[in-house]
């Protein structure tokens, strides 16, 4: 297996912050709304450089979503920022009616997603958001893998006309996507080619899967690893092309097993090409307090879980 060059270590939310700041300089139609989490979302730089285009909404997320929808009328491109929990579950009806159904050009930018929010515990660790968002017609759902890709995705969604859910997080993780990589919404990145097993991952689980692929490689297993940064629209061709070759698949995500990336992949396989699949995901459970890495281990979404799932699914072929 090829070695991945590591370009440093950063959190994905900082990639969003840098992307948003760049948009502030390059796209005068971009406006930003934040529900009292400017620092946590890394929106400070945009605020500093564009105070007239930054809207402090206070702790009132429902109002924020509908105000953002209203701001599209007259040509603005609103980016909302708060934690993933408050970006989705708390405001689902506002998103459903005023953004998705009304086809408004709002970018819902959600940080601190999943277990890796860490010590704050289950009240804030949303693991259902991908499912909720991908079920909405008209919604694009993007879960970038690292700092560079989150910045690239932030820039890309400003050029895409329509509602987008952009999910990122808090922990500092290795950067492996080159800074000058192309980000195309809906086009998966094949990180390594292989023949024994396909691993399809998103978000922080892409790095975990890179680590897993190295371990598997040392065991003589040839892994094809796909970074599925766009959950919807899903790159069906990339999935089929790979699984038709490897004949089995592992999906890996920091999300509930129900309704996440894995279910989207399973739907493609059930309709097109039957192959055994193993899920690396949280199994119908809320999280708890702990460090991000402790939680990933305890809830079964760590490197070793990807390795075990790959060996298991290969045995099922």
């Amino acid at each position, binding site marked *: 297996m090829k070695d991945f060059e590591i370009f440093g270590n950063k959190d994905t939310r900082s990639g969003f912050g840098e992307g948003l700041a760049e948009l502030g300089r390059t796209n005068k139609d971009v*406006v930003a709304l934040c529900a009292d989490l400017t620092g946590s979302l890394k929106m400070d730089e945009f605020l500093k450089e564009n105070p*007239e*285009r930054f*809207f402090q*909404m*206070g702790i*009132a997320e*429902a*109002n924020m*979503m*509908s*105000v*953002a*929808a*209203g*701001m*599209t*009328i*007259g*040509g*603005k491109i*609103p980016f909302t920022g708060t934690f993933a929990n408050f970006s989705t579950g708390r405001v689902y*009806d*506002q998103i*459903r*009616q*005023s953004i998705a*159904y*009304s*086809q*408004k050009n709002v970018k819902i930018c959600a940080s601190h997603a999943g277990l890796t929010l860490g010590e704050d515990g289950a009240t804030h660790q949303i693991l259902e958001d991908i499912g909720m968002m991908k079920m909405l017609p008209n919604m694009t759902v993007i879960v970038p893998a690292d700092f560079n890709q989150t910045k690239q995705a932030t820039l890309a969604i400003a050029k895409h006309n329509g509602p987008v859910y952009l999910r990122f997080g808090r922990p500092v993780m290795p950067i492996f996507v080159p800074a000058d990589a192309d980000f195309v919404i809906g086009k998966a990145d094949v990180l390594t080619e292989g023949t024994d097993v396909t691993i399809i991952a998103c978000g922080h689980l892409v790095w975990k899967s890179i680590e897993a692929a190295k371990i598997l490689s040392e065991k003589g297993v040839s892994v094809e690893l796909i970074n599925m940064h766009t959950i919807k629209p899903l790159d069906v061709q990339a999935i089929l092309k790979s699984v038709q070759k490897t004949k089995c698949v592992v999906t890996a995500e920091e999300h509930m097993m129900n309704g996440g990336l894995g279910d989207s992949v399973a739907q493609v396989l059930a309709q097109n090409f039957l192959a055994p699949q193993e899920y690396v995901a949280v199994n119908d459970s809320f999280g708890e307090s702990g460090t991000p890495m402790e939680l990933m281990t305890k809830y079964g979404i760590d490197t070793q879980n990807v390795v075990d799932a790959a060996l298991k699914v290969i045995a099922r072929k």
Partner: protein
Amino acid sequence: MEKVELERVASQVRRDIVRMVAGVNSGHPGGSLGCADFLTFLYFDVMKHNPKNFTMDGIGEDLFFLSNGHISPVWYSVLARSGYFPVADLGTFRKLSSKLQGHPSTDKKLPGIRMASGSLGQGLSVAIGAAQVKKMNKDASFVYCLHGDGELQEGQIWEAAMYAAANNVDNVIATIDYNGRQIDGDVEDVLSLGNLHDKWQAFGWSVLEMDGHNFNDMNNVMQKAQSLCGNGRPVVIIMKTEMGQGVDFMVGSHKWHGVAPNPEQLANALSQLEETLGDY
């Protein structure tokens, strides 16, 4: 427009409402009839708008958002009678593949509609967002929105009220259809709004009151509302109406909130409403 002309339009709008609702045996006639005078007044006498060339962005135009989307029949009728789309389309209300969905939507591209509504409590926030963009765009037009009184039980309304006052969104004129009725009965009994005037005032809004069935009063109050804009405070008009206004067996009762008249009741209702502009 002269008061007598507005009355003639409103009479036709009321005929449209009861015919639309009876035609599919579903829909919400009570609140629609109650707001027929106001929406006629707004679209035929107040707003600067361009029915023949509808654009989503509405640059340079006044905007209107219906937050209590269930009274879609009155809005559809007023939009059609204003020239946004053919009046014949009113006959498709709530039918399969129609642009005139049960509650207003944008997905089928009905001219005049900029936001879906139906799930209550969202339209004030939407109007405020659109109003802030008008300010950013140096567009001096107004943004109007209409809300049910029962709708004010939704918490988001008060998030929006707080936000607009805190941010001096003083180009929005919200109107409350204060008919005192909701599905389960009188608002006072279901969940009292308390002193509504004082509530809005405490939230930092300029508060006006108006008779939603008196064109002279509406004219005076709306002029006052417009004159209050630009002073740093958003404006709300508490508009007294009667649910079911114009049809004697519907007026003043919550029972016609979401019930269609049968053919006999329809004939009775139509006998009370003059056909002034021609039925669709």
